[in-house]
């Protein structure tokens, strides 16, 4: 293969190798991109176009030809919002908003829910609908919500529109949060486009701190335990003992947090390095002492979005108590569906929604916050409720989930067996332990870590960064945990 061919291959879309933040390719790409970017700090117009071009390329590397969707959505939403902004005719504005929502949600529905809807239709009416295998463009759920927030905010007259379509496209396609959030609100982001680009010493430290932590969470903890333990148990729960099933549930609880928050942290860090501040997306959610609190600390940008655009649009808590509970429940139900086209996500959302409504109805958060012991117990209960719900989120289907649950139900008190399992899966157990310890250290300690990191001289930071890349690379090339059958 000639050198030109290999460069061409490297630049073209390969569905097997989407461009991930924790890949080597991204590191080189970003470095190249960033050098030019910081040379353009003072030429806004060019910089904006440059970032759009890079973001579209980034998206192309993740989803191929579907980067055209981003361009399409940007134009449509920008101009519809512009019409809404300029109009004073209430009904016209409403119709424009509805049109915009139909286009956005229609695209989302087509790409994400067609198969699901067809399956349900077929099941209900024993039909034979089939739309083939529809490719799901990466991040479509995220950027659809972002563009909708722009249009709705303009409709609500809470936001000045972007000055031109390019600025808007810059917001929509901004690559750090493009594929996995946080879901950035237009009103938080667009004003920053017009500010002078700046990065303070503290922000630099914070950005690197987030990126390093995010990489470790995503590429070391999450990736390692999923491949080497969690996936296996969920694929074939009956082959594992009750304790291994339980361990897999804890494992997944950690895995999904590390995966998701790790990616968010990297996104926030990268954006910060580029001079943009994105909202925090996770605040050690498993430390919550109620499900209500959990949703204030888990995927904050989504729960905030659902609150402002779905819950409030449905009437929020302004229409009586019962209606409030219903709205909460429905918001979570739809929020569940947002995570994926399957009934299991609906159930997952419904379980959370129910508990949220119950907590609100009985004012549980107030009761438990009174006493330390109560708070502690509430924390443990909340953690286990959330972990239990994750079983349905992770399992391939209901049967699979119930299978895991019933296996855990067969648990017996036998610490010797538990210890055998833990030592058999020594590496997984160590990674799990580190992951949970990291999660449960008090906020002050985390702040302290940041303060220490901030004081490390530039050379030290370089070495630390090199060490992190090594850890990631050495984890990725570590041997796959072989299958283990214990004899008890």
């Amino acid at each position, binding site marked *: 293969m000639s050198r030109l061919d290999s460069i061409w291959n490297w630049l073209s879309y390969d569905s097997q190798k989407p461009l991930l933040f924790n890949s080597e390719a991204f590191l080189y790409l970003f470095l190249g991109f960033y050098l030019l970017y910081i040379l353009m700090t003072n030429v806004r117009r060019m910089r904006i176009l440059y970032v759009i071009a890079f973001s579209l390329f980034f998206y192309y590397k993740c989803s191929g030809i579907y980067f055209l969707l981003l361009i399409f959505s940007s134009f449509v939403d920008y101009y519809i919002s512009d019409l809404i902004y300029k109009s004073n005719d209430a009904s016209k504005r409403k119709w424009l908003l509805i049109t915009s929502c139909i286009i956005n949600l229609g695209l989302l529905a087509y790409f994400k829910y067609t198969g699901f809807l067809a399956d349900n239709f077929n099941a209900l009416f024993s039909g034979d609908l089939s739309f083939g295998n529809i490719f799901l463009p990466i991040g479509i759920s995220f950027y659809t919500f972002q563009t909708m927030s722009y249009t709705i905010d303009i409709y609500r007259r809470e936001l000045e529109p972007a000055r031109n379509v390019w600025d808007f496209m810059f917001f929509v396609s901004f690559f750090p949060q493009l594929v996995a959030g946080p879901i950035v609100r237009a009103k938080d982001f667009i004003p920053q486009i017009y500010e002078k680009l700046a990065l303070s010493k503290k922000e630099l430290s914070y950005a690197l701190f987030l990126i390093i932590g995010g990489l470790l969470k995503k590429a070391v903890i999450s990736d390692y335990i999923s491949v080497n333990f969690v996936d296996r148990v969920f694929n074939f729960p009956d082959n594992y003992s009750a304790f291994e099933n339980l361990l897999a549930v804890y494992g997944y609880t950690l895995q999904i947090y590390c995966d998701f928050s790790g990616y968010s942290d990297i996104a926030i860090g990268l954006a910060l390095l580029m001079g943009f501040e994105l909202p925090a997306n996770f605040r050690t959610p498993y430390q919550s002492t109620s499900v209500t609190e959990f949703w204030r600390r888990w995927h904050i940008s989504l729960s905030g979005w659902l609150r402002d655009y779905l819950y409030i649009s449905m009437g929020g808590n302004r229409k009586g108590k019962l209606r409030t509970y219903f709205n909460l429940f429905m918001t979570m139900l739809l929020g569940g569906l947002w995570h994926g086209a399957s009934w299991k996500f609906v159930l997952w959302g419904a379980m959370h929604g129910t508990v949220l409504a119950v907590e609100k109805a009985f004012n549980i958060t107030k009761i438990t916050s009174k006493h330390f012991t109560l708070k502690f117990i509430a924390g443990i209960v909340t953690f286990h409720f959330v972990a239990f719900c994750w079983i349905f989120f992770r399992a391939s289907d209901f049967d699979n989930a119930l299978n895991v649950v019933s296996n855990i139900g067969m648990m017996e008190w036998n610490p010797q067996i538990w210890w055998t399992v833990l030592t*058999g899966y020594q590496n997984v157990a160590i990674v799990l332990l580190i992951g949970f310890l990291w999660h449960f250290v008090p906020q002050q300690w985390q702040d302290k870590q940041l303060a220490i990191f901030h004081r490390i001289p530039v050379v030290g930071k370089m070495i630390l*960064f090199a060490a992190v890349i090594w850890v990631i690379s050495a984890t990725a090339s*570590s041997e796959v*945990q072989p299958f283990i059958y214990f004899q008890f």
Partner: protein
Amino acid sequence: MLFKDQKQFFYAFFIIAIGALLFYFTKPFLPSKIFTENSNSTNIVVDSLMLKAMEDVEQEPLTLDQDSINLTSPKIATDTVSIPVIVKDSIITPKKKISYASLIRTTDFNYNLEHPVDSAGIALIPGSISYTSYKGSENLARFFEKLYQLEQSKKGKVRIAYYGDSMIDGDLIVQDFRSALQTRFGGRGVGFVSIKSESARSRYSVKHYASGNWTQRNYMKGRADSLPYGVNGAIFFPADSTASVKYLASGIKNSYRLNSPRLFYGPATDNALLKVTEEKDTTFNSIALKGKNGLNTVNLSSKNLKKIELDFSGAQNTPIYGIDFSDATGVAVDGFSNRGNSGLPLSILNIGQMKKFDQELGYDLIILQFGANVLTRESKSYNWYSSRMTKVINHLKQAFPNTDILILGTADKGTKFENLVKTDTSVVKLLRAQQHYAAKTESGFMSLFHLMGGVNTMPIWTDQKLANNDFTHFSPKGSRKIGRMIYGTLMEDYSAFAKARSKQLQLQIEQHKADSLATSTLNDSLQNTPLHD
């Protein structure tokens, strides 16, 4: 300074860039893996004979690669199956010497092979690939003949013992293979089922629950002193009167019922009593276990049940083996899985006892699916394994003199290289060793690796949920697929056999006709010849 305000941006760039460079240049000096696997825990299942064999290997000279073996047939082309000539119940096949070099070689494959993907970016499941080297289907002639007779006359019984490791745990693969054979040739039931099994809980083809006090021994831990294991490689004793076992029919096609259950047990002690509860009955039958022979059987019911429960009493020293669930005609397949089994423990099976089992059950084919546990052990070559398995198979041939043997070559197994999962370097080496001992012992050989599509297929099977994330075991869905493939390949060879067989019959009939015609002509001519001249 032009970029005074942007100083921190440049720091950021340099930290990342120099950090990356630093990593790049120090990488060769750093360990390339953080997590290494050393599973030496005593609680992990691996058969003791393999562990011992592994220890012995170091002292052994490597001789296998140079030797040559006698094969009963020349190299067979992919599309033709040579059929032995069956003359008066004896099988005559030309003996030919073939060198080891014509077996599957590690150099046959491109290990960097990438498989095509579809428009949605999902790798397509590769199709099976063919190979021209040793398959030994001619060595399955006796089995095919029995199948042929069954198919022609719709009478008789064909029985297969399918031994394997965790790949067939919980009757995976076997249940689909069995079901397919029974659909074509008739026969119902899951075959021989042990009293206890480590995979009983996850077994789908039949549910069985042993409760109460049982003591058990099995060949995984080596030889049992003076205890003859059953054909299932295990022996169970109802330690007290709490010992009971319950079987429930389950949902695999052709095994919806527990067909004519028959208990297999060793010499019974006096007063050994068995209570049999059928279905949801509240009443039970009492059966006194009276057999004093090395192997005894008792019919538990003549019906095809959904559920049966056995309670033992006074049978502390009576060896219990298991229950056979099968119809009087058709195909029966017994799945004998042991996690961690390398195949070597089969050499412990007592020849006398096996002959007794063979007498009762009548095995026509033994399938051996092993290797997954050998693969995990780092090894330069699998000569040690090949020579030991040769002994195992010769041992089986002694125990089951009328039974053909089919060796299943290992499936693909994935291992991480850098951060890509590819075919483990040991896979083809093991496959070659397996083909070698198949050829050497004149057994049939079928490569699962080739059925799957060859190099680098396991990662795709894993992606498609056909295999588990250890890149070794098939998922239930993948097991169904591979079970059907094994069946399909066997049937291809069988069809060729059956075709040749009918042709042979045709020829014999024609020959017979011609002979009788000739005789009658001769007689005629004799008659026509004037008796006296």
